[in-house]
């Protein structure tokens, strides 16, 4: 028996309660996961708006739904390495700053597509962008970007230094994530809401590549999947 065990006898708990409690404690990023889930629900029920602002809002929803899930491990790292009272703040700063580049680039891209008026070429844009994504999967630049997604920064414990470090890490992570996943998000930008099924496939690829330790080894399989999807869109419409 240890001294500590004698000092604090644990009350008897039901097994699943302990498991749930353990899960709750080990995943402080659950709030961000809920935001992503909410974005998915909104996308499921939202109509297809063709207005400028409707397309912009749609982009932000897709961004939250598709790019927050791959960022959850990094958010978990940041939150677990922050003091308890500033954990949520750290997670939000990281997520916000990492999505900033996506939001700006996406807003510009979506706006450009709307202004030019490419609606009539939707099928070709969607199919072509999926093929571009397939090719990008196989490039060394994609592999390097995925590795960069795992790089972390020291996080000071308190104050503005801690905030700045979270933002700096978010921007750096967001940049790496943008380089890794821009081609996966290209169909969203060019074709608007391409359907939940395709979005799930693309999100699955992004999550697998960033969450799995050697995610870049999935590149070949992802390239095949994207090629098949692109060809189906081009041939079947």
């Amino acid at each position: 028996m240890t001294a500590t065990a004698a000092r604090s006898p644990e009350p008897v708990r039901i097994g699943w309660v302990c498991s749930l409690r353990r899960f709750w404690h080990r995943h402080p990023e659950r709030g961000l996961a809920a935001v992503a889930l909410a974005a998915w629900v909104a996308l499921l029920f939202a109509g297809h708006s063709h207005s400028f602002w409707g397309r912009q809002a749609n982009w932000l929803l897709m961004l939250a739904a598709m790019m927050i899930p791959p960022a959850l491990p990094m958010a978990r790292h940041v939150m677990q390495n922050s003091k308890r009272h500033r954990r949520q703040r750290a997670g939000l700063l990281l997520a916000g700053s990492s999505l900033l580049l996506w939001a700006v680039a996406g807003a510009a891209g979506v706006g450009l597509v709307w202004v030019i008026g490419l609606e009539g070429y939707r099928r070709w844009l969607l199919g072509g962008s999926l093929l571009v994504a397939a090719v990008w999967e196989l490039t060394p630049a994609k592999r390097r970007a995925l590795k960069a997604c795992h790089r972390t920064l020291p996080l000071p414990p308190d104050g503005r230094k801690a905030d700045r470090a979270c933002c700096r890490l978010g921007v750096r992570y967001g940049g790496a994530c943008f380089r890794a996943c821009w081609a996966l998000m290209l169909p969203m930008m060019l074709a608007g809401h391409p359907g939940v099924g395709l979005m799930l496939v693309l999100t699955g690829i992004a999550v697998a590549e960033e969450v799995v330790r050697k995610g870049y080894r999935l590149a070949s399989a992802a390239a095949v999947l994207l090629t098949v999807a692109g060809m189906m869109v081009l041939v079947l419409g």
Partner: protein
Amino acid sequence: MNSGEKVVATAREGQGPSKDLGTEPVTRIRRDIWKLEQAQQWHPAITAYAEAIRIMNSRPASNPTSLAYQAAIHGNTAADTWRNTCQHATWFFLPWHRMYLYWFEQICRAAIQTSDKVDSATKAGWALPYWNYDRGSPTNQLPQAFRDPETPDGDPNPLFVPGRNPSMAAGGGMPASVTSATAALAKHNFTGGSGGPATSGGFGGPITGFNHGGGAIGELENVPHGAVHVTVGGQMGSFNTAGLDPIFWLHHCNIDRLWEVWDRQTSPGRSNPDTDNWTTDQTFHFRDTSGADVTQVSGGVVNTRDLNYVYDQFSVPFARPDILQKVQRIPLLFPGARSALPEGFAAPAEEVRPDRPAELAGATEEPVVLTGETVAASFSTATNAAFRAKPAEPERVFLNVEEIRAEGPPGTPYEVFVNLPDDDETTDDHYSVGLVSLFGAAEASDPESEHPEGLKYVFDITDLYQAMKQAGLWNEADVKVTFKPVRVEMPEGASAAFAEAERRPEPAVTIGRVSVFFQ
């Protein structure tokens, strides 16, 4: 020794009772290189090893049985099924290296059979020697056969490689804090668990999948494993070149032996993992004597007799009292403290696993740069009580040294102290929490590497914290962590110029953050 020889292993010394080894048929015996050297300079077994290395060095690097290819299995700039697959910072560290040694030994043995410089008796019974550097001087020095540029015949010595730490190359000895496995052997648990910012590695490493590096490491992987790598230096100091130095294989044989020593302890008994995710789920690939692909799993290498070898002894001759003190953290070291822990060989704090996450209590705000001198960093662990995890008094306390990056392979490990009161070296040990060996720091800093997140060390300082609290030596507002370089003991008669060479410029090592976690 021939197959079938009966061996009675010696009982361990100084670490309590051992399991009865009995008499069992085994094939070969791995012997202590220093005992071979002391029995006969250039003992036939050492000559045979030199011949094996010479022959393997003569093969092209594309040949799986060449030394270059075998070294690339450990680390390489390009990865494939076999190369760049060494397992570090994982509970596969020990079984992977056992497999690696096994196939290397087979290749050496096959090479020896072709040499006319090796007699038939040696050919029949040869096994890799091990380097047990933990028996004081001279065993803490590189064996002479690895320091001579030429063999007794006047030929270039295949066991000699240039570029090692100059002091080691000249016969300097590694200090006990580098060579001692006492702290590792005191660990009760094979693994420290998985996940979380304060997950320590236990004895054998944290629970992971396939892991080439990055993350917290097991105690044995840190010291003596990593510390010896860094202290020997040169090719030994880097993942990608370590296997090119012939001493690497003898060093790892000793680490393999220490796994056996740990497993044989009985007070309390130790046990290897038995879950499928360790024993069978992860397959590793190697090359056999013909270069063909072979696979193994951890569950198949737990017992060395299944691999047809044993070690000649399992003792830990240097269960050093000073290092034992560090392990036991006897609170009475600090005047006024009363014993917070039950008596026993090992620190029992690792057995306590609170059902709540570890919380960051404090950390440095700026990086700490190690340049070969003693350096200290201070920070506060005083957190607003309203935000502190309950209960307010932690059951476990961890010191994390994390986000460690280096511009090149470090040449010096550092000993870590908490709240060191002065420069009095006679009292240092009371405040030591262990070493940061820094092996793999350069690889973990390379953006192109598999794991560019830097090195991380997690020290369980629960007992030290409790003792300091009781003695009034733990000031929440000012926790000081000191890093002292651990240098090679100068060889006798070393000149001033030589001492200067020992203090050669080393790549700067940056510790991103030093933190304390309460659980």
